[in-house]
């Protein structure tokens, strides 16, 4: 996955993501694509979750997957999650759960609870950083005020790092793929450098939903695992998603 939160020159926050899923889950030799990735594309839906006929939050989902991976609480915050691989992974959390140790939260249930119940960026940040999880994850969170954008790097138990937009340091966006931001990505899976190159080339003055879509459409940020692209504008309460394809030649990840 690739997720980013960027602040434009007027202090508006824009959140974009590519959802990549299906690595090593069956390669279709004939169509040169990942089997599960292609099967997931028809399941992508946008959902407006309402209570009392009023929107509580909106999300882009796979039909029947009741947790959240991408969502917006209009006028409050935006949230995406990216997979964080670790040997201390979710399978340990599952074993603990089965053995009766149930003080951790399932990742996508936490994100859904946050979208449903948190009312501000700060509240969402605290819940995402402090709740014990069954699996490690990256949470990418955007708010509705200047400087409110961060990447929360989570182990199962701890918040390892919170990396925030810091305009004074010239950091007008934060961008996360599937590697800790303070470490080099795997040399065979470096989507971070091309994505950052395109963000820097775009400049803060020109950042918009339109130009974020351009960044997320550049190979290898767009790749054979990309199922959908979502763009969110928190102040307008807007979420838009598009199912993607990566015609050959295209990186498998």
């Amino acid at each position, binding site marked *: 996955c690739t997720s980013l939160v960027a602040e434009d020159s007027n202090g508006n926050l824009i959140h974009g993501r590519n959802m990549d899923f299906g690595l090593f889950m069956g390669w279709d030799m004939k169509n040169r694509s990942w089997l599960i990735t292609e099967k997931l594309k028809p399941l992508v839906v946008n959902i407006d979750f309402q209570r009392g006929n009023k929107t509580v939050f909106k999300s882009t989902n796979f*039909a029947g997957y009741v947790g959240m991976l991408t969502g917006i609480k209009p006028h409050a915050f935006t949230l995406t999650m990216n997979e964080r691989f670790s040997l201390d992974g979710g399978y340990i959390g599952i074993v603990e759960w089965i053995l009766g140790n149930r003080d951790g939260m399932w990742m996508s249930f936490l994100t859904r609870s946050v979208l449903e119940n948190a009312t501000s960026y700060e509240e969402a940040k605290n819940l995402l950083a402090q709740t014990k999880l069954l699996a490690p994850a990256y949470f990418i969170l955007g708010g509705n005020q200047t400087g409110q954008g961060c990447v929360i790097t989570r182990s199962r138990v701890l918040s390892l790092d919170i990396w925030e937009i810091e305009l004074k340091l010239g950091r007008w966006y934060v961008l996360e793929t599937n590697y800790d931001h303070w470490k080099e990505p795997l040399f065979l899976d470096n989507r971070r450098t091309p994505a950052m190159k395109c963000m820097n080339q775009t400049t803060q003055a020109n950042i918009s939903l339109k130009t974020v879509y351009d960044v997320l459409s550049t190979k290898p940020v767009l790749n054979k695992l990309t199922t959908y692209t979502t763009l969110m504008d928190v102040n307008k309460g807007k979420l838009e998603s598009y199912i993607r394809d990566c015609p050959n030649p295209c990186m498998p990840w």
Partner: protein
Amino acid sequence: SAQFVPPYTEECQTGMYPPKGPTFKGPVTWYTIDLDLPPSERWKLIITDKKAALVNMIQAIKDLANAFVPSGKLIDLVDKDLPLIVNTLPYPFNEEIKGVATASGVPLGEVVLYNIFYEIFTV
């Protein structure tokens, strides 16, 4: 880096929006979920519309699992043992998952697997 060799890495794209062309496979349909409904009812409309796609995707996962464990024991495990987890999952997610299984006709264990995929594959 080996990955920066063209054509797998390209110059930064411009003018891609509004989405069109070969990288755009289609728009995403909007649905409403009413949180005032009982959890087991919430996903009914979406699953009615997406039943075939859901069954198709779960079947692909089963095929993949059966390719690794040809005896079919892995899927047996999913069908027999994973339903036992569902009641330990927090409310309302447990009830929503049961509702998805009922509406789709997909065995409960397989819907549970789909919903806890993230925790299983973070290694």
